[in-house]
């Protein structure tokens, strides 16, 4: 049946909806596009015949089936790309503007381009807010204290704070830091909030 290849793409998204981004299936997308090309050409041929010979309507059903299949394939492809973009957008808010290399490796060149553009648009928007900009990815929950205690989960080297002082992020070391400086690192799993 037509549309099976496209459904495979959708199944892939469905399988990985809980996890992180799966690899971009370039081969699958190409195969769907090829199927669509074949369907389209067959339809063009049949329609041209229909126009020439009005009395013969028998190929109309086939045209209809191919047309529906084309629409279906288009829908699957769009949904595949759209749902990936949704996930990539969520990644921007969770991982920050720099994605881990293995996530990046799962993206197509066009998706990387989209991510860069999204990054830029978001940065521009955040800069335009208030006086001197507002980081929307900060304080996703209302803050209770200005400073919080954190434990370092992995060796991350030096971190320079806004006031110029430097601290060394060593595994299992404890720090008392301004919340605004470490919220990102907690979300990225580098630090752990201790209460």
């Amino acid at each position, binding site marked *: 049946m037509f549309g099976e290849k496209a459904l495979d793409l959708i199944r892939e998204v469905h399988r990985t*909806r809980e996890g*992180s981004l799966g690899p971009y299936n370039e081969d699958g997308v190409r195969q769907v596009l090829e199927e669509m090309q074949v369907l389209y050409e067959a339809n063009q041929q049949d329609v041209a015949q229909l126009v020439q010979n009005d009395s013969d309507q028998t190929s109309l059903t086939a045209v209809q089936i191919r047309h*529906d299949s084309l629409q279906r394939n288009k829908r699957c492809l769009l949904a595949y790309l759209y749902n990936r973009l949704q996930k990539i957008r969520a990644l921007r808010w969770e991982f920050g503007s720099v994605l*881990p290399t293995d*996530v990046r490796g799962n993206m197509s060149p066009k998706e990387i381009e989209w991510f860069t553009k999204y990054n830029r648009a978001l940065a521009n928007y955040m800069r335009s807010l208030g006086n001197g900009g507002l980081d929307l990815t900060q304080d996703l929950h209302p803050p209770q204290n200005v400073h919080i205690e954190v434990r370092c989960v992995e060796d991350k080297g030096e971190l320079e704070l806004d006031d110029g002082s430097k601290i060394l992020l060593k595994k299992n070391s404890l720090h008392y830091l301004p919340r605004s400086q470490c919220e990102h690192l*907690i979300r990225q799993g580098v630090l752990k909030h201790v209460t």
Partner: protein
Amino acid sequence: MDLLCPPGGGMKQNYLSIDDIMMSSEKIPSTFLVSVKTLGYLDPSTNKKDIEVGSKLDLPLWLALSLAHPRKKFVTVELTKPYKATYREILKADAGVVNLYKLCPYYYALGQQQLSLNHAEGILVARSLILAFSDRFRRIMDLSGNAIGGDNSSLIQQFDEVERRLFALGQKSLQSFQRWEVGESRTLRTSELVSRHRKRKREAVD
């Protein structure tokens, strides 16, 4: 997730919904009322060039909906098995013990979609769907709002996709309520996406 837009609703409301696309690929037994030229290879049971009048074929829902449209009438469709009288009787007896996921992962949505195909039994199917859902819903809510830590996988296996979504939602709010109770909701945590990503990486290393 998009609980407000459950599968169903078709192309117009849910064009980009993965669930709706999965649901609409379920096979519907159909009989052709017209012949279709040159597409005989879609029917694996024959080697003929064309699909002939009267040949039976399992068409995916998206195609069946279009071809069975009252204005076209290229095919007639049958109700799929899990919605027939036998299964309706089972659901009526005790919907709670039926493994809906096995019958169809999108049981309610697919049933709903088939109503628009004007089956004679349409109204009976609709009634059975509502009864089955209300029967099962109480137990799902009860479970999702109270079950903590235990292994519910054998029960969840019987839920259809919408029910699973409901269950997960209830569990999530139960968990965040508990976190709030012990005063943990203020603690900043690693984002879920990131920790899931790490877990996967660790698996790959092992």
